[in-house]
């Protein structure tokens, strides 16, 4: 197990370096001079040169790259062009709201996804199965920027059950979390169903049944345990989509997290903040995947031995 974790960590290091490199290169995708775009055409040459040296853009590319990596390893992501405060402190102010939202979304997705997936598999080809599958297909096909406004329209305007926007108590969390959770829940549901059907066909299930076990322990004690292993991986892989989805969900619901910060920074051409947000989301994604793989290996010995 220890060997597996070491091996997995070694594979992750170049990926992290790659993420940093691509994030570093982002600002060089700006057509023309990024300084002109950040300050506008009217800015004086002195201001432009000051910003250029503040961002280190007057240095050779390799030197810039080295400095960038050095700064990142010291958790220094530069300074916001707009508010002049450090990017790290702005990001850390916004993190709790996004964590709250994504954890709640994950909770809803698992709460609905796994039980409905089990029911669909147990009742394969029945009306219940078909209607669950059709619903999940809609879930996958409903983008957040349509679902979000519809949830607001139905549950805040037509039936004023929930407040529309901004962070606050649990009732403020329900609509944004649901709108973020639906696609993920649908994916978890389909994966749970497929895996359960796969397991139900196995010999050990037939053995359990021939011993005279009733449905309930067969499904929950034997099949479900094995079926859930691949579901863990899917959940891990979807964290990236969930985090990126916050850009849209947080914008719709005025949620003061990383996603709305990213959009705001893009609109203000505050590139250090854009870089910081992108790096934060991408690194979180890489690290979540690392933990997913490790936990997968813990529950499934076949992986770490191969």
């Amino acid at each position: 197990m220890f060997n597996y974790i070491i091996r997995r960590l070694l594979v992750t290091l170049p990926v992290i370096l790659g993420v940093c490199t691509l994030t570093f290169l982002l600002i060089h995708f700006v057509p023309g001079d990024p300084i002109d775009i950040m300050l506008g055409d009217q800015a004086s040459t002195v201001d432009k040169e000051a910003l250029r040296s503040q961002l280190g853009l007057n240095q050779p590319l390799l030197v810039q790259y080295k400095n960038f990596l050095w700064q990142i390893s010291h958790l220094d992501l530069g300074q916001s062009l707009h508010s002049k405060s450090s990017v790290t402190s702005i990001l850390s102010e916004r993190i709790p709201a996004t964590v709250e939202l994504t954890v709640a979304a994950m909770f809803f997705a698992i709460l609905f996804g796994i039980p409905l997936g089990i029911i669909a598999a147990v009742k394969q080809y029945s009306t219940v199965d078909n209607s669950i599958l059709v619903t999940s297909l809609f879930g996958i096909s409903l983008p957040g920027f349509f679902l979000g406004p519809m949830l607001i329209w139905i549950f805040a305007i037509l039936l004023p059950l929930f407040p529309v926007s901004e962070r606050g108590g649990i009732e403020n969390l329900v609509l944004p979390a649901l709108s973020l959770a639906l696609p993920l829940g649908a994916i978890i549901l389909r994966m749970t169903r497929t895996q359960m059907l796969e397991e139900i066909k196995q010999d050990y299930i037939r053995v359990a049944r021939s011993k005279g076990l009733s449905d309930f322990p067969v499904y929950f004690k034997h099949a479900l345990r094995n079926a859930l292993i691949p579901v863990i991986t899917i959940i891990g892989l979807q964290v990236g989509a969930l985090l990126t989805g916050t850009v849209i969900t947080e914008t719709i619901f005025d949620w003061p997290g990383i996603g709305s910060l990213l959009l705001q920074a893009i609109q203000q051409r505050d590139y250090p903040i854009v870089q910081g947000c992108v790096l934060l989301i991408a690194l979180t994604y890489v690290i979540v995947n690392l933990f997913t793989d490790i936990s997968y290996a813990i529950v499934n010995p076949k992986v770490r031995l191969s």
Partner: protein
Amino acid sequence: MKKTKRVTRNLMIVGASLISLMVLIAIFAPYIAPQDPNIMSLADRYQGMSWQHPFGLDENGSDVLAKVVYGARVSLAVSLSVVSLSIVIGLVLGSFAGYFGKFWDGFIMRAIDMIQAFPNFLLALALVAVMGPSVRNVIIAMCLTSWAGFARLVRGEILYLKEKEYVSSALAIGASHWRTIVLHIWPNLVGAIVVNASFAMAGTIIAESGLSFLGLGAPPTTPTWGALLNSGRKILEEAPHVSIFPGLAILILILGFNLFGDGLRDYLDPKS
């Protein structure tokens, strides 16, 4: 088993019909739209559904039906260009990596790893943000992110297929490597690529609309579903129809591609 085969075929047909419906709407947009999508009449803003304007009017008094049908053109054109370009890039680079191996494999796979380390939409969003919003930049940004999936798929298939006997016999009778790849290996990839292209179309349409929703897509004069939904979400109370209709259009198209991809995958799967 027979029954499931019929069900998946029916799903495929439903999916294909939904896609064809939207393609026809996009092609015949000028005949379906009651008026030009950019005509404004502020006096009638927020007007609901009527015979003259079946989907009502938006906050500028522009016709929502016109914007929805012209929006289909943008979504389909962008996603079709992105997916076909990504398939071409993915086929060439994936074949290089899988067939020739060694240095190329390492190099191309590292590039794929680097791109796939980012959540797809995030990278496209960041690229458009720095390059500036325009249809061309949206296409470039999404190609840069979505070729990697196809390249990985092609590489995997080629690693397996190049060991086949018909490949060594093609080489033995003197076919060049690329001739073997193009004429003997690629035809075997068609099924897998079409299935993935269908899901990629769904993903790209969501991403393109998402970018326009955030104001990072086509310029405001080009009607897009995303931009329409964005203006609609601010006037949900007065004019919910501005959000509902473009949203339904996206839903129908995405559902079409997902159904088609699902059905085709199960249909081609030898296990079922």
